[in-house]
């Protein structure tokens, strides 16, 4: 029941677009709604504008009050400082973040399709037990696994490596529920036809079924990538070598540096968030649909 709610709900997220053409929007309502939303728009936008503005403000002007929303003069010095400082290898951090996020995400997507397919379409002993364990793990808060996983990685001498991030990430179960739902939706006749043509189970999975759930794969990719890219807590625990840090941990190093470097912190925040925000602005429809479908898969 819940799965059907999720699906129709997500389909509906885009449906407004079509409705618009049928029923013209009234100008009065548009004005009223914008007036209503103006305070919220203001609250959402101002901190982001502030971050951008401070990133281009001289270190010596960082403490000016009242706030200079447009930097006087605008400067790139925070950026040149950050790139020149070898103790703050922000390019390396950016690359680290990109590597662990992409590798982790590819593992999650691939493993979710494999397992999701098996739990939806295949039969094998103890299938229900194995699936129940996945559901069980969803109910256990992550806090309890932190220390054991940390000790495990230490014993494998994997602290301060990329594996320390993506290995635990690959255990993620959320994608499996989504993939399972969507594999269920594929009509059995399609598989039967392929089987009669002599296709084996791996070929049916790879060549017939996988292309039909491409949308869900994109959804899981987006969801997992953002989760890994933005995560602070786990990298903070398992990464301590400066050259291995991910961007969110690196930002803390800049921000909590031995000398005050407010401008640098904002420049770092700018570097960490603006590419993601631009990416979000371009692919917003896909990203929002991906986040809602995947986020609700546990329902």
């Amino acid at each position, binding site marked *: 029941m819940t799965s059907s709610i999720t699906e129709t709900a997500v389909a509906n997220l885009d449906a407004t677009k079509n409705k618009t053409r049928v029923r013209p929007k009234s100008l009065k309502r548009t004005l009223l709604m914008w007036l209503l939303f103006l305070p919220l728009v203001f609250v959402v936008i101002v901190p982001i504008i502030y971050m951008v503005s401070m990133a281009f403000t001289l270190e010596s002007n960082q403490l000016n009050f009242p706030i200079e929303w447009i930097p006087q003069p605008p400067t790139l010095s925070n950026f040149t400082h950050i790139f020149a400082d070898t103790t703050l290898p922000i390019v390396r951090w950016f690359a680290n973040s990109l590597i662990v996020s992409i590798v982790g995400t590819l593992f999650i997507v691939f493993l*979710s399709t494999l397992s999701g397919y098996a739990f939806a379409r295949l039969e094998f002993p103890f299938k229900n037990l194995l699936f129940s364990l996945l559901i069980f793990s969803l*109910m256990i808060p992550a806090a309890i696994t932190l220390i054991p996983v940390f000790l495990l990685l230490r014993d494998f001498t994997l602290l301060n490596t990329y594996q320390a991030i993506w290995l635990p990430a690959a*255990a993620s179960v959320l994608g499996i529920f989504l993939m399972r739902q969507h594999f269920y939706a594929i009509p059995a006749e399609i598989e039967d036809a392929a089987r009669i043509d002599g296709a084996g189970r791996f070929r049916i999975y790879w060549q017939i079924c996988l292309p039909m759930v491409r949308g869900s794969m994109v959804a899981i990719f987006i969801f997992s990538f953002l989760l890994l890219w933005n995560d602070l807590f786990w990298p903070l625990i398992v990464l301590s070598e400066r050259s291995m840090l991910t961007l969110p941990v690196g930002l803390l190093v800049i921000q909590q540096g031995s000398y005050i470097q407010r401008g640098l912190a904002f420049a770092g925040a700018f570097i960490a968030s603006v590419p993601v925000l631009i990416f979000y602005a371009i692919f917003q429809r896909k990203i929002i649909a991906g986040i809602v479908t995947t986020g609700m898969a546990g329902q």
Partner: protein
Amino acid sequence: MTTYRASMDDKVRPVSANRKRLRKQLPNYLFVIPHYLFFAVFLLYPIFRGIQISLYDWKIMLQDQKFIGLANYQALTKDMIFRETLGNTVYFTVLTVGINVVLALLVATALKQNFRGSHFLRVLFYAPAILSVSVLGIIGIRIWDTQLGIVNYFLTTLLGLPRISWLGNPSLVIPSLALTTVWWTFGFPMLVFLAGLQSIPEALYEAAKIDGAGRLQTFRHITIPLIMPTMLFVVVTQFISHMQVFAQPYIITAGGPGNASRTAVMYLYETAWKFFRFGYASAISVVLAGIMIIVTIFLFSVLRSRVEY
């Protein structure tokens, strides 16, 4: 007939046929084993291992750990800092989840209306959630700063009010952090509510209109009951994620003033990775997990009973 499909008839078969079926099914394990290896090592085993470690006086450098039974838990019951951090966490969670749910539902209800720019607003309101919590922290420090902060800037210049020490005041620090978190996270519940609202059949609203129901009545008697399954999902997931709050206080206030904004997971982090008391930290995590599971079950039973299908 092929036997590895899920739609098998479950008639009793002779032993040889069973064995044959099993042999045909065995390769299916190849689909689940890759993920299950990761799952077993990094999720399932650690859950039980965490409980086990909590029974030891676990020191990171030792070869042989000392078993102390429930001593860690006994110490926890007398640990005033733990009690304080737990209280802070619950306070923070109630505020954040409460504001998030109300705000998200109101915004979603309004955005469901069809007007020019409603899609743009949806995209805009989710945008903060795209930011890393580190970025949130860097901005958050300056939002609430007493001398230079954005909030005090508007209070003093626009409203002519005196400056408020948001993060220095023990009774304001948690609400400030909660509001920061709402700014960052309310987009997701909003999108989920929006999806839930749009799955309510339009015919119901039209029927109510014909019957002469006002806007508030419609909201109260149609929207609220039909949104309950979504509400349950949102409240439970929000509760679970905000009970484990760490980064916002860690970056913005470092737990201060005093312990006024130290949270349970912060205390867990410091116990384990500052003082290397892994056994005690594990006990903290088990108690926290236990509380969360109990409350989740409670939420399910309370909200389920109000769900009308």
